[in-house]
């Protein structure tokens, strides 16, 4: 079983996903767009299918390859929770820094008033 991560390692496979995101395509189109041999494209498509990133729709004699975004959305969820945690943490740090700067400024102004006396 090939994982989504393994499937995404290869730059050519990511390029294929980019092209399939635009529209479903035939193997021949991918061969032309990526200038890679048909066996090469077929091998990458097999990996992408095993990782459930791509599905095939048979239409008469044609096989259309389509993007399945679900595994990518799951991956995004997985990363998103951590990004959110960090984002929130640093928003709090921003607030803290803003407050401490305001306090420092106040302190300096107080000191100035005192020294003016």
């Amino acid at each position, binding site marked *: 079983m090939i*994982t989504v*991560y*393994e499937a*995404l*390692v290869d730059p050519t496979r*990511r390029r294929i*996903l*980019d092209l399939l*995101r635009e529209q479903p395509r035939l193997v021949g189109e991918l061969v032309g767009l990526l200038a890679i041999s048909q066996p090469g494209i077929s091998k990458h498509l097999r990996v992408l299918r095993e990782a459930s990133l791509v599905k095939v729709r048979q239409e008469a004699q044609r096989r259309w390859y389509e*993007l399945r*975004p679900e595994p*990518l*959305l799951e*991956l*995004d969820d*997985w*990363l998103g*929770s*951590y*990004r959110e*945690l*960090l*984002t*929130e*943490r*640093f928003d*709090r*740090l*921003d*607030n*803290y*820094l*803003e407050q*401490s*700067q305001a306090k420092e400024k106040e302190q300096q102004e107080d000191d100035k008033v005192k020294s003016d006396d």
Partner: protein
Amino acid sequence: MTKLNLTIEPGKQEFSYTRVFNASPEQVFKAYTDPAAIVQWWGPRYLTTTIEKMEVQPGGSWRFIQQDANNNEYAFHGVYHDIVSPSRIVQTFEFEGTPGHVALEILTMERQDGKTLLTAKSIFQSVEDRDGMVGSGGESGMRESLDRLDELLKEAA
């Protein structure tokens, strides 16, 4: 629009991020090394963070405890290895809920256009440890920067 730039490369036992703060390196460094500051930003708002120990010097220990409304506690601890004011902190990090999975954290603060660029790197003992920390159930290592993937996802969504 987020200012956080998080990099998690598949198959690596580390992750890193950068973040710019509208403050001086001295102020950012203080936010990391002053207990009174830590309690204000380190933990999520719905948890109360208590500093049990915070010996900010090479070889010193730290232990923070977070408590939720039901009195559940989540504790973290580590050791400070390198403290260079106001530019560098190296420390270990361990969540006591998963003992033994220690990470090494390297934080640097650099002045940049009147602001501070924070760069953080966390290095884990294994890819599994890293993935476990980042997500709740990282089943496998990820093997490529996911920054590009983010763009892909935004358009796919």
